[in-house]
């Protein structure tokens, strides 16, 4: 018998990229008895979901830092608990202010109401009501992220039935919720929240969820719907929808990888794919850097659509319209990451101590004007001098992330536009200035921060592109705008994971339902391949 991967004995499937989605695809395919090979360019799996000891003794959640929508059915199907996945829910979302105690939104809704009451009694009354409405809408929206997106222009019975089901669900909401659902999908986060709340100190941190990973501002239409994500896990207005995996987000990747291996998948690291093998319009395997060719009956790409189609496949193999659409696909990296090793915990000026308020996430989002100003700068091609920052202290959630008494701090920063006015390739010259802006901003809230820093890692979107291979460093593999969601992700008519190249499937965040450590694109792609008998 010829070795696996030779022309005579091809793999059933090759997965390009060992990110969490690629690993999920592999696990599902292997679980169905297929012979699967995962090829990862770096020395470790995980993609943007990795934990690395960049500074001795300190483990950084290098890119992604929390888990929100990892699908429960994937956790069950792949037995991730058995493979070591442990999650610690984030108990609080703290928004400090320079001149006051700021706001903590706790997992406990009553506590949250008390906090909000200080800002606005009216808003405190409305908060639970808002949570209830969002809970209802979340129940409506949830099926969309767990199944294939129906194409409203299609005449296929399956699309029609799915659309009809969605339409029936929509109408069953009642007129008020129908209108609200429509508003939620089209409005800006701030405008939507202002329909309910008056306190800017409350609206600002709530609106942030809509801009994460996008090149949009909190006022930009279309940013409201992400609010729903917070209510998909819980329905009582708590912020428990977020969790930190013990061992960092790399532990999620490792659990999925371990599951995939247990089902028989093979994972090769330091195996960079340089191009797709295409014969007669059909994907027949891959070519590695260095020339090694590996044959497979089908290929799943866990890379972003632009890299997959324009980089690995090549324009010449694609239908013209499709290639144009991929060229028009908006990647637009807008965020950077700063990871910091700390000698001691840098306390907040207005809520000192290492209390429960810092065991969740901390959002530097003092006002909606602040957030919009940060966006304005990015629009014109510079990083925000006073950015939105989402801070998590992994060492408070998992003591193993840093040596005793020391801490690590993960800062997700927006905006850092990939396209600097001076050109994306000039990021290396601006990288440290960007890091300084982040530290300066944080030091306003944490006065001792600068003295406490032992080491700092700054990642611009350019760095994310260079290191993780994500085009323009967009953490979601492409803007989560309305025009790039559902049946239009990544291209209208090609949102069912199948691609114009026979045998090539897309199972990354650039496919429906999109980004975040969800696992859904990878899992749905694998299921679709199996259903189609393609593997």
């Amino acid at each position, binding site marked *: 018998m010829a070795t696996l991967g030779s022309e005579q004995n091809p793999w059933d499937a090759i997965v390009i990229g060992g990110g969490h989605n690629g690993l999920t695809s592999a696990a599902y395919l292997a679980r169905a008895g297929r012979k699967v090979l995962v090829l990862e360019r770096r020395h470790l799996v995980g993609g943007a979901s990795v934990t690395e000891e960049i500074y001795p003794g300190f483990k950084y959640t290098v890119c992604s830092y929390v888990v929100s929508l990892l699908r429960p059915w994937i956790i069950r199907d792949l037995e991730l608990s058995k493979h070591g996945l442990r999650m610690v829910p984030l108990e609080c979302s703290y928004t400090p202010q320079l001149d006051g105690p700021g706001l903590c939104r706790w997992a406990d809704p*009553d*506590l949250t*109401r*008390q906090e909000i*009451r200080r800002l606005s*009694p*009216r*808003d*405190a*009354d*409305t908060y*639970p*009501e808002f949570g*209830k409405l969002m*809970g209802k809408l979340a129940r409506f929206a949830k099926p969309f992220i767990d199944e294939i997106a129906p194409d409203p222009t299609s005449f296929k019975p399956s699309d029609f039935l799915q659309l009809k089901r969605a339409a029936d669900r929509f109408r069953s909401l009642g007129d008020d919720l129908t209108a609200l659902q429509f508003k939620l999908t089209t409005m800006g986060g701030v405008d939507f929240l202002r329909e309910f709340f008056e306190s800017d100190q409350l609206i600002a941190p709530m609106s942030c969820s809509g801009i994460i990973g996008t090149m949009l501002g909190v006022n930009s239409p279309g940013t409201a719907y992400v609010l729903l994500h917070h209510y998909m896990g819980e*329905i*009582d207005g708590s912020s428990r929808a977020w969790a930190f995996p013990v061992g960092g987000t790399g532990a999620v990747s490792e659990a999925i990888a371990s599951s995939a291996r247990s089902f028989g998948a093979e994972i090769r690291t330091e195996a960079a794919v340089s191009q797709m093998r295409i014969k007669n319009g059909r994907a027949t395997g891959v070519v590695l850097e260095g020339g090694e060719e590996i044959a497979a009956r089908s290929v799943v790409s866990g890379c972003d659509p632009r890299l997959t189609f324009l980089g690995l496949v090549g324009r010449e193999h694609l239908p013209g319209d499709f290639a144009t659409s991929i060229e028009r696909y908006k990647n637009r990296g807008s965020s950077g990451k700063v990871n910091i090793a700390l000698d001691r915990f840098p306390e907040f000026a207005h809520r000192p101590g290492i209390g429960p308020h810092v065991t969740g996430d901390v959002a530097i989002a003092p006002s909606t004007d602040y957030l919009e100003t940060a966006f304005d700068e990015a629009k014109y091609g510079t990083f925000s001098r006073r950015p939105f920052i989402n801070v998590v202290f992994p060492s408070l959630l998992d003591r193993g992330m840093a040596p005793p008494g020391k801490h690590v701090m993960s800062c997700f920063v927006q905006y850092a536009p990939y396209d600097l006015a001076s050109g994306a390739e000039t990021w290396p010259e601006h990288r440290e200035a960007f890091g300084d802006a982040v530290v300066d901003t944080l030091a306003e809230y944490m006065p001792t921060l600068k003295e406490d820093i032992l080491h700092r890692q700054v990642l611009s979107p350019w760095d994310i592109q260079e290191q993780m291979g994500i085009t323009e460093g967009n953490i979601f593999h492409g803007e989560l705008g309305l025009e790039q969601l559902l049946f239009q992700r990544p291209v209208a008519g090609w949102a069912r994971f199948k691609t114009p190249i026979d045998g090539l499937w897309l199972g990354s965040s650039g496919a429906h339902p999109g980004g975040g450590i969800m696992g859904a694109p990878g899992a749905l792609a694998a299921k679709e391949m199996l259903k189609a008998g393609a593997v």
Partner: protein
Amino acid sequence: MPRTTPFHERTAALMQSYAWKEWAGYAAPCNYDAHSEREYFAIRRSAGLIDVTPLYKYEVTGPDAARFLARLWTRDITKLKPGRVAYGCMCDGDGMVLDDGTVACLAPERYRMTSSEAWLGWFEQHRRGFDVQIEDSTDRIAALALQGPLSREVLRNVVDADLDSLRFFGLAACHLAGAEGWITRTGYTGDLGYELWVPNADAITLYDAILEAGAEHGVQPIGLDALDVTRIEAGFVLQGIDYVSSRSCLIDARRSTPEDSGLGWTVNLEREGWIGREALLRERENGPKWNLVGLELDWAEIEDLHAEYELPPHLAPCACREAVPVYLASGKQVGQATSSTWSPTLKRSLALAQVHRRHTSIGTKLQVEHTVEFERRRVTATVVDRPFFDPPRKTSTPNFPPKTPA
């Protein structure tokens, strides 16, 4: 963390049992002693003093204040005269109850409302078009209830209002232990009783004055446990227990109309312009589904049940707030009993229950789940009139109607 009321200094000093619970964000005593029996009997035999500051309080003022409140409440507040208090409920646009509470007319164009939940957001939503100001005075005004047959006697030496003329659901502005405030003849015990309203700064003085004046009458500080027993005896519903505010219901089926929650009597569907009316007119056409009834559990059956396990039945005056199913004799579930208690005064076991409309006529025999030694059993319960306990002293007023000289 719960906050403390202006009376906390005193209530904390009296607290023996360390039994605090949270009430609307405040720390409130459940019972001061190890159990609440003494407190219960103080309310029914002498008078009990209860810190009711955590009630939400709103001052509604301005030329359109009455119209505005009449829009929000089921009662026609435009007809409420100065010196009177009305009990009623507020509904949402679907006619589902949001909350129940009182509206007091302090003076023309000046009202104070109380509720169990916070409603400032709701008021703001409906304010446009009305010339009113709304202030949340919850944190500014301290409130005490003195309830029981001797409450009038005790207060004679504390307040300068004409208590003999103050009618049931009446209100008087007066001095209370020297401080300016209000007294209302209202309460949640179904007994003779008053509620006293003063600025926070005067809270302690008033508290001391009442306990001092009441010492010879046996006045006791009372916690929420004893209050709960008396309110069930009085047949009063409690938001969050006997019905759930439609704002807090995660599913629509949980919501209640005024009829469903025993508040139908506060509703006048002929009156126009109040929120929820249109929906409730439709309900009237179709007939309400539920009603809230009083149930009396068959004591002999309870005793027999316990006897099977060689146990005596539980007799302490302590209310149970865990809903249990209500069945027909056939075994079909037709509702749930939401609050229940043993009434030490009436010597009966009582419950409030939400029951399918068809089974609510007085005298109907139903079955209520009753757990003994972790086994679920049933006892017979009869639909009876509410209130269970309704002494004449609750409503009678010595000088009303005014005595004409012979």
